[in-house]
């Protein structure tokens, strides 16, 4: 990674990150002058930023690092999956589901029980270099909750939703500080659930065919260019391994805390 810290470059703190990609190149700009380019074929990054941005640890931790892992991870065997991840005694619970299913809200509710929070949104899965199996990692970024989450978590009343990186209005809070949750950086995928909202009361656990689970992840994965066949193959392999875990569909019409309670009981017995 080559980063030019240029004193003639100005920071625009109000600017939103902007992304574009063509073939094996991806650009990320922050305002008019700050830019990063990612070469996915050669796994190189070049960027130019202002001294103010260079010295801002929050920029590196909450913006550039997630962007870099998201953009380049697949080329180095670290596959971003749009799933939350929680850990209990070293065993990971991945929560997948369509946008709006309530993954983040449920993650916080689980993290208020016996689970540690690894990630509420994107989990980065790779093969364990030393042992058989997989490692699921989070990036210790703030938990992102949509404004209506305030009805489930009174702790959020002290905060105001703000526009997040993808333009959504959301609370972005530190789970440790706000919810006193345990946080972990890694876990080992053990259970995989697909969360579905239901209008009917109750919380049902239905075994999910691994082939269907694999198809869900493949269908919802970012399109990759033909220049990156190895990355696409790596992603498919990781998805195959992840969906070899115990897979269930969880249909819930309950509040997040009640759903978390049911999942907690289920994991104890599964």
């Amino acid at each position, binding site marked *: 990674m080559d980063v030019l810290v240029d004193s003639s470059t100005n920071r625009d703190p109000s600017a939103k990150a902007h992304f574009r990609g*063509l073939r094996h190149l991806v650009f990320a700009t922050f305002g008019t002058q700050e830019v990063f380019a990612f070469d996915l074929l050669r796994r190189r990054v070049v960027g*130019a930023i202002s001294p103010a941005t260079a010295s801002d640890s929050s920029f590196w931790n909450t913006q550039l690092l997630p962007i870099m892992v998201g953009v380049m991870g697949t080329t180095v065997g670290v596959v971003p999956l749009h799933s939350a991840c929680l850990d209990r005694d070293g065993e990971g619970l991945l929560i997948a589901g369509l946008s709006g299913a309530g993954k983040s809200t449920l993650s916080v509710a689980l993290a208020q029980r016996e689970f540690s929070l690894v990630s509420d949104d994107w989990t980065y899965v790779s093969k364990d270099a030393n042992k058989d199996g997989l490692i699921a990692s989070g990036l210790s970024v703030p938990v992102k909750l949509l404004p209506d989450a305030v009805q489930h978590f009174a702790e959020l009343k002290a905060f105001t939703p703000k526009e997040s990186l993808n333009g959504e209005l959301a609370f972005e809070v530190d789970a440790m500080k706000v919810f006193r949750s345990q946080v972990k950086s890694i876990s080992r995928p053990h259970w995989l659930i697909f969360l579905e909202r239901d209008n009917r009361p109750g919380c049902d656990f239905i075994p999910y065919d691994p082939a269907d689970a694999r198809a869900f992840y493949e269908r919802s994965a970012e399109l990759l260019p033909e220049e990156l066949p190895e990355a696409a193959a790596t992603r498919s392999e990781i998805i195959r391994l992840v969906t070899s875990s115990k897979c269930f569909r969880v249909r819930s019409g309950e509040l997040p805390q009640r759903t978390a309670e049911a999942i907690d009981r289920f994991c104890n017995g599964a």
Partner: protein
Amino acid sequence: MPLYDHTPYSHPLDVLRRFMPSPLKTLIKFEKEIILVETNDSSLLLPFGYLDSQTTSAISPAFHWKLLRDADVRGKLARATILMAGSLLVANIGPVCLAGMDLERQELLAFIGGEVDPQDYQIYVFPVLSGLTQFAMGKKPAIGIPFPNEVVGANA
């Protein structure tokens, strides 16, 4: 009349716009080289002299340019900066114009914002794209912005 589809491109699994269609293809002559240009907006081809179709049949282009008009991106051009890492040369003229030249693959990839008009394109953007290509040809770029040897000390 330029051919340009102004419909904003959107695909839920292609947030980076990698697969934005670029149906227009032509060969153009740039200095002594032939370049295959692929684009979604014929106005981006205006600065070039086209080759007639009889000339082009047997030609193998030395460079490949992919120029995409990005209707969603609004705003003005900014001061150009050029960076280099390994075989990648990047020009940033603000979010409205991003270009990368892969020196090894001799491929130029660029997004040009919807509000960059033909005049600004010819005066500010095209010289930068040309400069990147001249650099890739091993020539000194004929534009007045610092190239990487002057901006980044080395390609670490």
